Structure formats: structure tokens, C-alpha cells
């Protein structure tokens, strides 16, 4: 129970700091809206074209606005030396990892809560469906897990803003394939059971990456 409370404390601290400045959230919002609008212009997304491209556009937007948020939140952590404070306060590195990943997960969900209705309007497809929500949850969970681990590495490198997407995006290939295919299936009117293979892929990805991240995070944050 102690560990859960510690995780909760880290998440609460991160969210409180973010809701106070809204620095990362506003950047992610504006970026996501920009991406959607530019995709619509560039690919001429109206009617049938919008419906066909919607899954890809949705997940590309999530992936890129996610890297934006991750790199900002870790850079802030480094500027304020927050991570060394965390390392002193919580003895278990897994707790810190879970807290940071959960924080990123929630931030991304807030952005997606706006992105989905906006996409529904701009792309002309109904993205506000319960089954789709599940896919978005699973995809975002895996994204936040891998993203937190890689951001902790990238933030220590020279040119970290460049290194984060270069390191992160290849690792997300299976996740993005699964999420895009599941979304496309659901938008074509399939039921959740009919895209079960993709849901399983997302679940396996999330579990496997969470296990790897929990085992290796200690080596990443050790000073």
C-alpha cells in the first residue's frame, strides 16, 4: 500500500505543477490542433478521404504531440533538479517510474479528450465511441511507458529534443501498427471482438514494455 501511496503522491505533484503553469498541456493542445489542421489541408481530407485517413492522422498526431509533452516534462524535471529529490524521497525506483509514466499517461489522456471530438468534427468520422476509447487507452498506456523510459535516457544526451523522437519512434512501430489497425477496423464498423488480434497485440506490448521498463529504469536514473 505504501508504494501505491507514493506513486499517487508523485502523480499528484506532477499534475498539480502542470495544472498550475499549464505549460506542457497548452503546447500539446496547440500542436495537436495544428497537426490535425495541417493534415486536413495537406491530404485534402474531406468526406471519404477523411474517413480513410482518420486512423493514421489520429495516431500520428498523438505520437508527435506525445514526444513534445515527454521532452518538456523531463526537461523541467532536470531544470528544477526534481529527479534527484525524488530519488532521495522514494527508495524504490519502480515507484518513481510508475509515478512518472502515470503522470504522462494522464496528461496525454487530457489532450486526447479534446483531440477526439475535434477529429470527429474535422475528419467527418465518429471518433467518440466506447470501443475506440479502449484502444486509445491501451495505445496511450504503452506510449507513456516506453516514452517515460526513453525520455529519461534522451534528457541526458546532447541535443535531447532531437534524440527523443529518434530513439522513441522506432520502438513504437508495433504499437502504432496495432492502434491504427484497430482504429481502422472499428471505424469500418467492426465490433471489438473482430479486431481482437490488435487488442491482444496492444495488451502484450503494454505488459512486455512495462516489465522491461520496471526492470531497467533503475540503471537509467542512477547518477
Amino acid at each position, binding site marked *: 500500500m505504501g508504494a501505491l501511496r507514493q506513486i499517487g503522491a508523485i502523480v499528484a505533484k506532477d499534475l498539480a505543477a502542470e495544472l498550475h503553469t499549464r505549460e506542457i498541456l497548452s503546447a500539446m493542445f496547440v500542436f495537436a490542433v495544428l497537426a490535425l489542421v495541417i493534415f486536413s489541408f495537406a491530404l485534402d481530407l474531406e468526406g471519404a478521404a477523411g474517413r480513410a485517413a482518420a486512423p493514421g492522422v489520429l495516431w500520428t498526431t498523438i505520437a508527435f504531440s506525445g514526444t513534445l509533452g515527454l521532452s518538456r516534462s523531463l526537461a523541467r524535471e532536470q531544470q528544477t533538479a526534481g529527479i534527484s529529490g525524488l530519488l532521495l524521497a522514494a527508495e524504490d525506483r519502480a515507484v518513481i517510474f510508475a509515478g512518472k509514466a502515470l503522470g504522462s499517461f494522464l496528461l496525454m489522456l487530457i489532450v486526447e479528450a479534446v483531440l477526439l471530438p475535434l477529429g470527429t468534427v474535422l475528419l467527418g468520422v465518429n471518433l467518440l465511441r466506447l470501443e475506440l476509447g479502449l484502444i486509445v487507452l491501451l495505445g496511450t498506456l504503452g506510449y507513456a511507458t*516506453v516514452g517515460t*523510459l*526513453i525520455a529519461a*535516457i534522451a534528457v*541526458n*544526451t*546532447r*541535443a535531447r529534443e532531437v*534524440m527523443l523522437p*529518434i*530513439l522513441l*519512434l*522506432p*520502438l513504437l*512501430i*508495433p504499437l502504432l*501498427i*496495432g492502434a491504427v*489497425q484497430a482504429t481502422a477496423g472499428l471505424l469500418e464498423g467492426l465490433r471489438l471482438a473482430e479486431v481482437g*488480434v*490488435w487488442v491482444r*497485440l496492444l495488451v*502484450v*506490448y503494454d505488459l*512486455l*514494455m512495462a516489465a*522491461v*521498463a520496471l526492470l*531497467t529504469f533503475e*540503471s*537509467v536514473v*542512477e547518477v
Partner: protein
Amino acid sequence: MKRQWWDWGLAIASVGIFLTALGMVFLYAPREATMGEIQRIFYFHVASAWIGFFAFFVTFLTGVIYLITSQRRWDVLSLSSAEVGLAFITMTVITGSLWARPVWGTYWTWEPRLTISAVQWLLYVAYVMLRTSTLSQERVARFAAVYGIVAFVTVPLSWFAIRWWRTIHPEILSGGEMAITPRMLHTLLVSLAAFTALYVTLLRQRALLERDRDRLAALQARWVAEGDIGDV
């Protein structure tokens, strides 16, 4: 001295097997009935892909051992294997697309085996870039070990994702399947041996380079500590 003999022997042996394999590909292996001459790409292409993947497995394994033991030699192996593997996978991707053009009529197709090579290429280019970012050696070693582990876990996940993706959107990829005759099998096996020997040789040379660099760094550190920098 004994060591050097070993290295020379290894290098000469791998060049020898490589040339033998090359000769077998063009002179011993039969002409394939449906694809014709272009099928001869297959032998080195497959060997390069398999040994490249094996090299990344070595990077993964030595990365795990490094995280447990913190011994520099495992890190050296990890880094050397990734670099050699990247060279092999680069060859695999390029020659795969050279194969795709006459057989499937296009330089690039999201055929699962070709795609997984491209995914591996992206992953390990990122690994090498992470390696070259200036950090203390000990930190970059830990980061690279973690990245090598996560990257290797991504490979099978991507494989299944691409397989299912391609079967859901079926594409007419007729051709590229063939019956293997004994002569073809012999050629493939000798090619595999050639690439294995080449891998071991390159891995060893790359590791020796890293050992020399470590020596130089240690020497320079000692001189700086003693106060005379010399002519470094």
C-alpha cells in the same frame, strides 16, 4: 604474438570462406526456374539477415550481462556487435529492395521480411546515435544497454504486427517462394558460414579498437592527473 596469429588466421579464414561462398553462388548453385538469375541474391541476403539479427541478439544479451556485472568488456561486446549488425542489416535492406524490383515489380513493398529488416535498421541506427552522444562512458554504456534490450524486444512485436497487418490487407506477392534443391541448400549453408566467420572477425577487430581507445583514455587521464599533458 600468439594472439596476433589467431587474429590473422581468423581474418584469412573468413575471407577464404567468403570467396568460396561467392564462387558457389555463381558457379555451383543452379539457376532457379521461375525467378532466374536474380534468385542468386537470396544466398547472401538471407545469411546477412540472419547473422545481422543474431548480432542484435548478442547486443541484447551482453547488454543484460553488463547491467548485472558492470564490467566494461561486456559493454564493448555489446557496442561492437550492434555496429557490425547494423552493417549487415544495411546490406540486407538494400539487396532486399534490389530483389523486390524484378521479382515483385517494385523497389519497395511492405513484405514482412523486408519490413522487419527496415525496422531493425531504424532501431539500431538510433542505438549507434545514442552511443555517439557525449556522455560519460559509464552512463552511455548503461543507457545503451537499456536501449539495446528494449529495441530487441520490439523486433518480435513488430514482426507479428507486420505479419497480421499484411495478411489483413492481402497483396499479390506471388513469386519469391521456391523449392530448395540440395545444391541451393549447400550454397546457403556455406554463405551462412561465411557471414558467421565475417561477423566474428569484425566483432573481434571492433572490440580491439575499443580496447585500444580505453588504454589511450586511461593513459591520458593519468597524465592529466600527474600534471603534464604532454603533446596530446
